[in-house]
């Protein structure tokens, strides 16, 4: 019984992390709920064991003794003696979210933890909505940090904000290409650029692939950011720097992840849904998408993955161009 539940508990699923909860507590809570669900199943039937009892033989004189086999219930597998059947589950966390941020958090259970590494190596982008507040500056760039400065913001208009966001996007686009270690003179790199696949497949600083303003009503504004290799603190710092560019100050009041790779808000499970059946359904629903996306994102990246880090760009031009020629010839 328990094994049937456990066998369906391998894979990735997304959870909506509420603000104010540490990711570690969330992971522990999910593990506890899964264990509770697994242990609630019916325990197996009690085992019997055979004992050979010495007794007088039937219908004979009392001196004759013989051994008779009897089956007596055994207490070895009684649930009160062994304890709960499941005490530990392997639950892993994908890209983490800090305590003040909220949004889609990918978790892996059992064999799904291996897929977490694959997802990390696929270097997919993530979507955030970032809410900012003009006129304040704090030490940790968040709204409830220690206040450092207060400024006026009447001069700020939507056009100014859009202009600054466009500049940011452009400069990050350049960095994308630089950190992806591609020689743009090759055919293959051109094709990848046409398809929009240029992105660094190894470590790099935070890169923004797209940023735009959804809503602007001073002092509040709402940005949508697509980025990779980010931390939430850097996103808040981004809001602070946007404020500085606008010749005022800004703090971030909300960082919310709406998409992590191929997991979106729709498939994320809320706190009330963190139990065994919901998680099993979520894993089953997400499994085909996960497989397809990982297949897709890992294969075209094969060529670029072999290249060394940016410091070696000189040397890499040689092999990449030959590779490119081969690839072109192969096609």
């Amino acid at each position: 019984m328990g094994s049937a539940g456990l066998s369906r508990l391998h894979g990735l699923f997304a959870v909506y992390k509420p603000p104010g909860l540490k990711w570690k507590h969330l992971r522990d809570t999910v593990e506890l709920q899964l264990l509770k669900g697994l242990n609630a199943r019916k325990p197996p039937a009690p085992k019997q064991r055979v004992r050979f009892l010495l007794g007088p033989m039937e219908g004979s004189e009392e001196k004759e003794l013989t051994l008779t086999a009897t089956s007596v219930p055994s207490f070895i597998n009684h649930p009160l003696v062994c304890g709960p059947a499941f005490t530990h589950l392997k639950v892993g966390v994908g890209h983490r979210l800090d305590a003040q941020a909220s949004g889609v958090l990918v978790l892996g259970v059992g064999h799904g933890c291996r897929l977490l590494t694959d997802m990390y190596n696929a270097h997919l982008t993530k979507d955030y909505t970032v809410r900012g507040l003009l006129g304040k500056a704090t030490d940790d760039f968040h709204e409830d940090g220690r206040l450092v400065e207060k400024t006026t913001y009447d001069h700020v208009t939507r056009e100014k904000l859009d202009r600054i966001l466009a500049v940011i996007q452009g400069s990050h686009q350049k960095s994308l290409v630089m950190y992806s270690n591609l020689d743009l003179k090759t055919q293959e790199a051109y094709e990848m650029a046409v398809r929009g696949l240029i992105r660094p497949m190894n470590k790099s600083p935070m890169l923004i692939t797209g940023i735009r303003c959804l809503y602007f009503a001073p002092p509040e504004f709402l940005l949508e950011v697509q980025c990779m290799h980010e931390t939430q603190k850097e996103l808040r710092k981004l809001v602070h720097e946007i404020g500085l560019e606008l010749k005022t100050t800004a703090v971030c009041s909300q960082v919310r992840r709406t998409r992590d790779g191929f997991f979106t808000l729709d498939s994320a499970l809320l706190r009330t849904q963190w139990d065994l059946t919901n998680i099993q359904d979520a894993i089953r629903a997400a499994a085909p998408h996960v497989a397809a996306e990982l297949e897709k994102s890992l294969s075209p990246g094969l060529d670029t993955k072999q290249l060394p880090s940016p410091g070696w760009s000189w040397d890499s031009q040689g092999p990449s161009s030959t590779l490119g020629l081969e690839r072109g010839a192969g096609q």
Partner: protein
Amino acid sequence: MALSAQQIPRWFNSVKLRSLINAAQLTKRFTRPARTLLHGFSAQPQISSDSCFLQWGFKTYRTSSLWNSSQSTSSSSQENNSAQSSLLPSMNEQSQKTQNISSFDSELFLEELDELPPLSPMQPISEEEAIQIIADPPLPPASFTLRDYVDHSETLQKLVLLGVDLSKIEKHPEAANLLLRLDFEKDIKQMLLFLKDVGIEDNQLGAFLTKNHAIFSEDLENLKTRVAYLHSKNFSKADVAQMVRKAPFLLNFSVERLDNRLGFFQKELELSVKKTRDLVVRLPRLLTGSLEPVKENMKVYRLELGFKHNEIQHMITRIPKMLTANKMKLTETFDFVHNVMSIPHHIIVKFPQVFNTRLFKVRERHLFLTYLGRAQYDPAKPNYISLDKLVSIPDEIFCEEIAKASVQDFEKFLKTL
């Protein structure tokens, strides 16, 4: 040479339970295929201190002799001895002259043993004696789990049938050792009958014993005195039963300690005797837990949160759990309710349940109501929503009646937080 009667006492067969590392408990056991009247001793030399290997396990003996037609189970009942360890001197005398020492690695023997000629396995024996050889695998002398012994110990089996969770007790080595050594008929039964007298039902005994396994080491007379003391303080029988059920360690406290605790609560809370009694009956954990958190919480309510003494008394009589709540959670909840939701003190006093709920629940529901424009907590104005409706009702009813929205809307809203 047969063992003489005087030499028998040197033999023992105590079982080492559970402590793998505890050298002081190491004993030697000897096993050999049990002959009719000589019961097997399992020999297992312990390498550690030789000063301690002679350990009496007198309690562990059963003088019942084994291989009569009937018992088998009862003889194995006592301890973890599949090879019945009985030392009736008379029987031993009649038995073999030689002892068959099993092929264990036992090298160390008592001096007496050396004098006995070894029993050869090739020696022909009669059919009857052959039947009566018990060759069960010996029980492990030490183990970290009671699973190894449960099939051979009637005490443990009866406890499991009562509902005691052995997997929790085996985490405490001393308790497990104690249970293995006790006899159900003699010791445990008395205690169970006493507990039933106090008022604990049959189906609650298991949970009680799982929590408070130390009660077996308490003296029955002391326990009766403590119950009499509680009765003298005008706690009714049902009250005492409820208190003991909810706080299993209550009867382990001496009369002076109980007296001190009751006195503390009377002084600290300055409630009437009857109200203090009701409070303690509802939350007997107050008597068994530490008093420091209670003192701290009283200070927090008075100084940090700014409640008056009569307000605190009112809240505590409604929700006794507030006395032992976590200080940080209290302050966070109060901060949100008072500063963000702008609810004044006198309304919070009317609904102390808000201190008993998780903060995230209060926050999510309040933010949803604000988003819908229904966050009205002033009793004077229309569409007033009371705090207890905010926190104490389940999600579906909250969404339908208070927020007048669907549960899907609530979930969508939660995903925007």
